[in-house]
């Protein structure tokens, strides 16, 4: 049975007056109740897409349905909470007064303010002016404002941007908590491991187009999934033998090791054949394809130096706002 969609776009396109094509024929589907991660390199059109979905900018062509209505319409906004790009508030007002202003615009009773302040752990600083807040506190106030309406759909643009490690962990926990009760969360992030840890599904955008969509495991599988890494000597002999046993395309040499695109269940039989052929096998292990590698492949970004040969630093920053 088809799942209900919280966000659905058809051929959504945005060309700015400068001629820049920021979003190009985008078809996006975010299912109700899921946490959807939106990834893309710098300039990919990620923030522009979130602005289109929030009704802040108008599409050049195409259409979108957000929370059951046209983006920017009162019907859509009534069910949408969003923090796009940076948390923007009145510097001369306290955190609590800023939420009072937002609550008045949204037509929400002020009794909602204290619970959301508590949820984002800002109650103690709520009386202080926004201009005195740290980046993390501003982010949390942004999330609090987005939650005031008790929205069915939450759009968060880089919610952990500028947060320290503790703040990042707390924000991730909050996002998971927000998912409870059937709420849909659409978030963009520049941290790949954040997407891995918090998102049910991921969409990768490059040059304004959606280049891949699926669960993290599906994306890994699409890009080779798990591989078998073998450290053997002599290397050339082992390579010849394996290329004769397998498809040559499945065998490559990387950093003095052999990397095989095969089902890891074949590890034992491959080991036996190598040893039987007089090859010394000093290491044989299963490598997970990192989401970062998948991301770089999908977006055709140049390879970055990685901390580990088999994968990379999954928390590496790979994108910024567009």
């Amino acid at each position: 049975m088809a799942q209900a969609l919280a966000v659905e776009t058809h051929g959504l396109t945005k060309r700015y007056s400068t001629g820049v094509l920021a979003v190009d024929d985008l078809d996006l589907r975010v299912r109700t109740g899921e946490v959807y991660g939106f990834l893309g390199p710098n300039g990919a059109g990620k923030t522009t897409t979130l602005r289109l979905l929030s009704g802040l900018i108008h599409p050049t062509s195409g259409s979108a349905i957000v929370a059951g209505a046209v983006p920017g319409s009162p019907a859509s906004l009534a069910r949408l909470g969003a923090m796009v790009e940076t948390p923007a508030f009145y510097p001369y007002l306290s955190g609590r007064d800023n939420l009072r202003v937002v609550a008045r615009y949204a037509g929400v009773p002020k009794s909602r303010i204290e619970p959301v302040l508590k949820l984002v752990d800002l109650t103690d600083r709520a009386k202080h002016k926004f201009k005195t807040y740290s980046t993390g506190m501003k982010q949390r106030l942004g999330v609090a404002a987005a939650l005031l309406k008790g929205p069915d759909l939450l759009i968060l643009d880089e919610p952990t941007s500028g947060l320290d490690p503790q703040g990042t962990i707390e924000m991730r926990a909050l996002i998971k908590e927000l998912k409870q009760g059937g709420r849909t969360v659409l978030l963009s992030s520049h941290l790949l491991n954040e997407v891995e840890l918090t998102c049910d599904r991921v969409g990768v955008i490059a040059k304004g187009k959606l280049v891949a969509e699926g669960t993290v495991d599906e994306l890994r599988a699409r890009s080779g999934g798990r591989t078998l890494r073998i450290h053997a000597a002599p290397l050339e002999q082992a390579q010849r033998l394996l290329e004769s046993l397998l498809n040559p395309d499945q065998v490559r040499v990387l950093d003095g090791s052999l990397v095989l695109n095969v089902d890891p269940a074949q590890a034992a039989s491959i080991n036996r054949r190598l040893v039987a052929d007089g090859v010394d096998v000093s290491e044989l292990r299963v490598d997970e394809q990192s989401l970062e590698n998948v991301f770089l492949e999908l977006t055709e970004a140049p390879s970055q130096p990685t901390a580990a040969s088999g994968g990379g630093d999954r928390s590496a920053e790979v994108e910024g706002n567009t």
Partner: protein
Amino acid sequence: MIASFRAETLKARKRWANWLLFGILLMTLLLFGYVLSYVIFKNPPRNFQSPVPASVLIRRDFPENLLPTVLSSMSTIGAAIMIILGSLSTASEYGWLTVQTILIQKPGRVAVLVGKLLNLGLITLITSVVALGLAALTSYLLVSIDGSSSAWPSVTELLKGFGALWLQLAVWTAFGMFLGIAFRSTAAAIGGGLTYLFVGEALIAGLLRDTPGVKEILKFLPGVNGEAVNASFRLSFRNPNAATQLVDANRGSITLVIYLALFTILALLIFRRRDVTGG
């Protein structure tokens, strides 16, 4: 719309800059419009030269001249302060990017801006009432100190004067609000607005008032039309130095109403349609 209006009143009330502008306006009115002129006319310097004696001119500070004095005092400083107020109310939203925080809430764009307009209308209303009230109190105190007698304007005149003041303050506020939305920059909106007021209206209209051709153009400027409305509230004595008006008061009032509508509609059109992008 009401939700947006309530949010705007909260923001305006808590904004220190608004209170500062309000204070400057009232202080300028009372100090330069009344106290200083009273002191000068009461004790005129030896080289004081005027076709009207100081002993007559002093009567501009008394209740009988409440309306012409308030209106002429407010015509420039009031316009300047209201341009700043209107510009701040919209341009700051772009500067702080709070415009996107607002637009992500429930009201549509038109409702958001109409709420802002209503709030600015309320502020100009309160400013007009307080300015007239304080001026009346000051003129009463001055005439009492002077030991003279003076009659108050009729209620009808007071209402007409109040309407003229409110209309002019509203036009300049709408002008500032429109500039704030058009430029999306506080500095550009205030700079552009004040340059127009002091160069376009005060300087050019003052110097080229009788130049053929230019005179016809001047008849369409809001400041010139406001001046014509103000001149219809006459002083209790004749002042030979008073400038002749380019248009009559009725045309002036109608032109001001058209300007108010024009600035409002232009602001709405731009605000409703234009993309809200990042800083």
